[in-house]
């Protein structure tokens, strides 16, 4: 069985985001493999270790820098990589088209991806890929079983768990609680350097969306501290809510 994992390179989750000329300033920001995709990579490698998967291929759409994300996945244990060269400005639609093209050429049995990217948080790409390829799709899974050409996966449903069965090929997107991604060993990193990575051009697709503006969330205001006896404190707080914060009853 051939498994394809889609990975995206994102900003480090702790990175300090700043805007410059209305755009996100990326100087000094560390780029990482999207943590949700990392879980998908781990899931794929575990399938390989169990003997279910024969080959694990990582696919990333993005600029040349995205090669680092592919190398990380290879260091974790994936077999080879494909970098679909695409501008970072590509939207979810264009990205899904580009990835689907590359996936089609590989003809995998299973496509894994994180259910959301840590940067834009749009949660669209895996679902769009399933749509474009016409494959069944299970979203936000926390466990996965493969037997007799079928995938059985549990996913989070409101207040419970949903178990779904689909035929392969299928597109499966992972929740972070599925597994704990491994830390690549030096052995893995050394081997990764020798693993093949193909670079292909992205299939042409126009963006369907246009970003109008970026803005940062308002910075946190310092709280106030009232150090009084409870009755006095309560009165002061009420006053503050009414006159300073100006919270009006509806």
């Amino acid at each position, binding site marked *: 069985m051939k498994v394809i994992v889609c990975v995206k390179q994102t900003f*480090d989750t*702790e*990175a*300090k985001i700043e805007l410059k000329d209305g755009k996100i300033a990326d100087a*000094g920001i*560390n780029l*990482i493999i999207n943590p949700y995709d990392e879980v998908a990579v781990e899931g794929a490698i575990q399938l390989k270790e169990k003997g279910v998967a024969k080959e694990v291929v990582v696919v990333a759409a993005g600029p040349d820098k995205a090669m680092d994300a592919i190398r990380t996945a290879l260091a974790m244990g994936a077999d080879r990589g494909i970098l679909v060269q695409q501008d970072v400005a590509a939207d979810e639609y264009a990205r899904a088209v580009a990835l689907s093209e590359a996936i089609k050429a590989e003809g995998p049995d299973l496509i894994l991806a994180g259910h959301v990217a840590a940067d834009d948080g749009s949660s669209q790409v895996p679902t769009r890929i399933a749509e474009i390829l016409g494959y069944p799709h299970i979203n936000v899974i926390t466990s996965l079983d493969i037997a007799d050409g079928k995938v059985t996966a549990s996913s989070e449903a409101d207040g419970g768990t949903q178990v779904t069965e689909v035929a392969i090929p299928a597109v499966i997107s992972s929740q972070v609680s599925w597994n*704990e991604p*491994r*830390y*690549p*060993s*030096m*052995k*893995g990193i050394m081997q990764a350097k020798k693993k093949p990575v193909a670079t292909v051009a992205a299939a042409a697709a126009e963006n369907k969306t246009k970003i109008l503006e970026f803005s940062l969330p308002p910075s946190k205001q310092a709280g106030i501290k009232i150090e009084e006896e409870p009755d006095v404190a309560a009165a002061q707080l009420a006053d503050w809510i009414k006159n300073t914060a100006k919270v009006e009853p509806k």
Partner: protein
Amino acid sequence: MAFGFEPFEGAYEVAERVVGANVPYEWLIYFIMFIPIVVFLYGAWKRIEIWTLGEGKINRFDKIWVRVMSWFTFSFAQARVIRKPLAGWMHALMFWGFLVLAAAAGVDAAHYWTGWPPIIGNAYVVFSCIVDIMGLLALVGIMVLFYIRYIMKPERLNDTKAEDGWMILLIFVILVTGFFLEGLRIHVQILLAPTGDTSHLAVAADYERFASPVGWIFAKLFSWMSMGAAEWSHRILWWFHMAVAFLFIALVPFTKLWHIVAGMCNYAFRDLGPSALRMVDNIEEAETFGVERIEEFSWKDILDLDACTRCGRCQENCPAYNTGKKLNPKITIIQNMKAHMYAKAPYLLEARKAALSARETGEAPVAVAEGIAVAADTSLIYDVVTAEAVWDCTNCRACMEHCPVFIEHIPKITEMRRNLVMWQGDMPSEAQAAFTNMERNYNPWGVGWALRSDWLEERGIRDIVNLLPEDGGDFEYLFYAGCAVSFDDRYKRVGEALIRLLRKAGVSVGYLGTEEYCCGDSARRLGNEYLFQTLAGQNIESFNNYGVKKIIVVCPHGYNTLKNEYPQLGGQYEVYHYTEILAELIEKGKLQVTTPINSRITYHDSCFLGRHNGIYQQPRSVLKTCGVSLVEVEKSKEFGFCCGAGGGRMWLEEEAAEGHKRINDTRTAQLLAPEPKMIVTNCPFCLTMISDGVKGTDQGETVKVFDVAEVLWKAVEQTI
């Protein structure tokens, strides 16, 4: 002289050392003695051959003179052994006694071979008296050692084997038969002596009272014996005594007695440097990482296995062992590895031979490879030591501090961690998280690196700090805040106290802010050498960019790393821990206490300031200036008990073992025992661990945990 021997002569005209009299064919001994010597040499070679199986690189042939001195001091002065008051001194007595007795035997042999005149007169009396008394001390030593091992049974000797008893018996028999011989000889001499003028010393061999005071007592024990019986007993016992003594020599390489040789080697080949982990050179080009198979250790590490005396001093002081963990430096590390090495050695030796002959004949060694495979079936890390034990260690250095033969436990544990992390990729998930955090954000907490200097604003000290990337002012000392000051809310206060103290004392400091990185201690000690070298390289680059010469470090882990480990990567600076600086400022009168703090406190020595760097006095003197009454806890200074956070364990979960508390809770209980008002420490990790510990007790509300810097700031400025 019918049998070629002299009879006893009773008293000699002048006092004289009697060698071999009354024993037929006594001279044979000087030829027979080559048998044990040959056996010894053969056995020794067999053991040393095993040391040569170590493939790892290490250089212990530098600084030859220091090594010779080290060998001499620690072997002959027993300087390290006597650190354990009773057992150590008894061992030393036995050792010195044996040494003198062996020297006396050597003089006798030399006398035989070279025909030196016998030792006579007062020289004899003095010489003999010393030997006699040393023999007695050795006898006392071995008997007390027997008493300790078999009657007192301290916990540290929990792996007593039959061999231990046999060796004690052997030594005891050699000493006692020696005194019996001396007693019998003197008894016969007394019988032979002309009676009469008792004022003459020669009469009745009276000089032996002074020359052989102990032998004299033994002579009295035999006073009932007839002359003939005494002579025959003497002859038989003499051969017996010699046989046992030769047995001793021959047994050295084959028994625990081998520690005499291996231990002395360890004194010469010990690590002479400061406390640092071993450097991995050219890590970019390395093809394996750490040690997976025992033969990948260096020869010194294998020698260590032989040198271990099973004295259990390491075990006795190990926080992991004392809280019921799998790790026991004596057993799980050294003795298990030793057994494994000896099981595998025959195959390794064969493989080496086969490889050599293959090189000559051009044929590949096939058969041996199978044997090796069998031995290799046992995994060093997973079966012999176990990964659990490898992760248990807090790098507290208690084992290495107290080991009488300078065995290096931590480097061995680190090599195995290196293999687990960098080669097998097998590590606790919390370690993974810490690595990822240090990799991406240069601190183990994982807070965004761009926020590294935000604590200045938070603590309201931005305007009094020379933040080099922004202000770029001149400075004398670099203030290396470290990750804890930067990101741990509690420890930011300590950073503030220090900045304010240094400013008050007029010390010029600069701070790197976001151009400072994690020191890498946790990464290195958790086995991620690659990450350590990356972080250290980044720091060194920053330091050099700003022309840093002197550094004040807040965290003892950072202190140890910058001071002792950065030189391995070319980072040479004058590195101080802040307690050293504060003590000096107080001494120079630059900081004056205005409001003494009259609290009863206990002080916790962090391992990296204490055992790793020997700083015990400065923090205490700072505290004393503050006016506190410091109550020393039972385990302090060299014997300080770890808080559990060292060796990167700060980032790993610790589960309490059945019937034990966790390490930090154990330490907290010790610190709370004298009922202090506060507990004071000097390290962010200790502060965290002990604060957590205190919270879990019923003193959680009343006892506060502070850092030395905070206590001083309070005493100087009345605020905290």
